[in-house]
């Protein structure tokens, strides 16, 4: 695990990856396990009586199916937000955290180019996301029978989780690139979480305003669940968009990183 920058970053992140995996499996699985309770006539009636605006804001437009419920509560909300927090904290560590701890100097005095270092670490971060989201996927598959989620197939879950990986990587990329370009943790955290908050509003709240429906197309949360992968499978357009943005943002951040002075 001490072989190169890629494995070292993952090795150093091992505890954090473990904790986040557990948290996401427990919280996501916990919500999913609620489905049989939600899926009872009394609750369904109560939910239908919510005002339309509130239901749209919360993505509660379809709570009568397991996929609608999971999209609204787990994939569009709680797990998505947890993963944004993970992406921002890990994305900050990639360069800015290391630099502010004055530990980046030494590594960059070794025979690795800045771009190599940055890309290897970012790749390592993406792998950590894949690990977290895959374990979570296995957890959801295990819940299919006990939580009565059987109208969703393994493949549909897989599609949803691919979206989740790209969505998390996007926030990691934005945070990483800001940190790499500026060397400042506060900027990285600020921009990363700022994009998260704006993206969240741009998907649930702003589009309800007259004439602003189009805004949701700009939201990473829309790219995550707008095409309803849990029901419709992989949304190739959304995925390619997220992939392209990750690539572009990472390239920009790494380029800016290779040109600037490293702080002591």
């Amino acid at each position, binding site marked *: 695990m*001490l072989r190169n920058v890629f494995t070292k970053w993952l090795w*150093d992140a091992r505890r954090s990856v473990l904790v986040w995996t557990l948290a996401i499996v427990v919280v996501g699985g916990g919500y999913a396990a609620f489905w049989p309770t939600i899926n009872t006539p009394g609750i369904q009636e109560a939910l239908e009586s919510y005002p339309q605006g509130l239901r749209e804001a919360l993505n509660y437009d379809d709570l009568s199916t397991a996929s609608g419920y999971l999209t609204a509560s787990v994939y569009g909300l709680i797990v998505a937000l947890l993963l944004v927090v993970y992406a921002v904290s890990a994305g900050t560590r990639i360069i800015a955290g290391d630099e502010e701890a004055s530990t980046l100097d*030494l590594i960059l005095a070794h*025979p*690795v180019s800045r771009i190599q270092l940055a890309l290897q670490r970012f790749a390592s971060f993406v792998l950590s996301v894949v690990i977290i989201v895959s374990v979570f996927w296995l957890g959801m598959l295990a819940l299919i029978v006990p939580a009565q989620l059987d109208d969703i197939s393994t493949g549909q879950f897989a599609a949803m989780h691919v979206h989740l990986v790209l969505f998390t990587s996007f926030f990691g990329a934005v945070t990483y690139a800001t940190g790499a370009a500026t060397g400042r943790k506060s900027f990285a955290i600020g921009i990363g979480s700022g994009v998260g908050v704006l993206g969240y509003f741009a998907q649930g709240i702003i589009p309800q305003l007259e004439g602003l429906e189009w805004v949701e197309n700009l939201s990473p949360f829309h790219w995550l669940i707008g095409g309803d992968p849990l029901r419709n499978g992989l949304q190739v357009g959304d995925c390619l968009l997220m992939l392209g943005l990750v690539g572009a943002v990472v390239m920009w951040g790494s380029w800016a990183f290779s040109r600037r002075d490293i702080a002591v």
Partner: protein
Amino acid sequence: MSDVAISTEGLVKDYGPTRGLAGLDLEVRTGEVYGFLGPNGAGKTTAIRLLLDLIRPTRGKAVVLGLDPRTDGVVLRRRIGYLPGDFAVDGRQTGAELLTYLGNLRGGVAAARIDELAQRLDLDLGLRIRTLSRGNRQKVGVIQAFMHEPDLLILDEPTSGLDPFLQHEFSDLAHEVSADGRTVFMSSHVMSEVQRTAHRVGMIRDGRLVTVERVEELRERSMRKVEIQFGGPVRAQSFVGLPGVTDLRVNGSVLRCRLDGRADALVKEAARHTVVTLSVEEADLEELFFHYYDQSDEAGGAA
């Protein structure tokens, strides 16, 4: 291999409005130990980080081991060992883990070589770095710089935090590197350390190289504070004007003065009286600096 390990020409580094380096011309020869001496804020760290391409010059150029740090950084850094002035690493790992990782970034360093250095510096590599004392942490830094036997060592205040015994051990390490035909470039505030370790000293102030001296000559010329206690009162007159003697003060039977250069005349004059005690103290760096700077200012003004 060329006989110049590092050369810089008119290296300028501006940090916004503050000037880190104001036109540095440096030449470090292959196989020598070069001491880079200067007060706080002189620009030592700035120069060193420019050589490693950690920061970029505003103007001027540097050639290190025949390569341009800016364009051949990776190839160049493979042949360099670097100790940062503020050696900071993730403290959760052990010394052995860190050194293995850093060695692997350089294509692998034999564990035996790491152990040998650790033994020599009396360091336990099994401990987590955050539990180490400051000096022991510095030893980890010294080991990582030396372990892969680089052609050029660039060390920013390598002995800060090391006790006198280890400072000597460090000097030995540096001498071995030099005996091997490899080069050491080290910064320091401490004249005595540089005198012990280096062959040549470059003095830097306000971002410029003020003077370069061979250590042997420096040693001969360097100022000393002398205090002689005689058996009875002596007269100041007989000591006035002796070569190298300045700041003469005689107080009853005690004589204090500064001595620059050879001690011969002073000793011979003193020997005419009964000498009870004689102490010679090396002038500290600060005094030495001001002495030299005054001289060089005068020389500059006269030219």
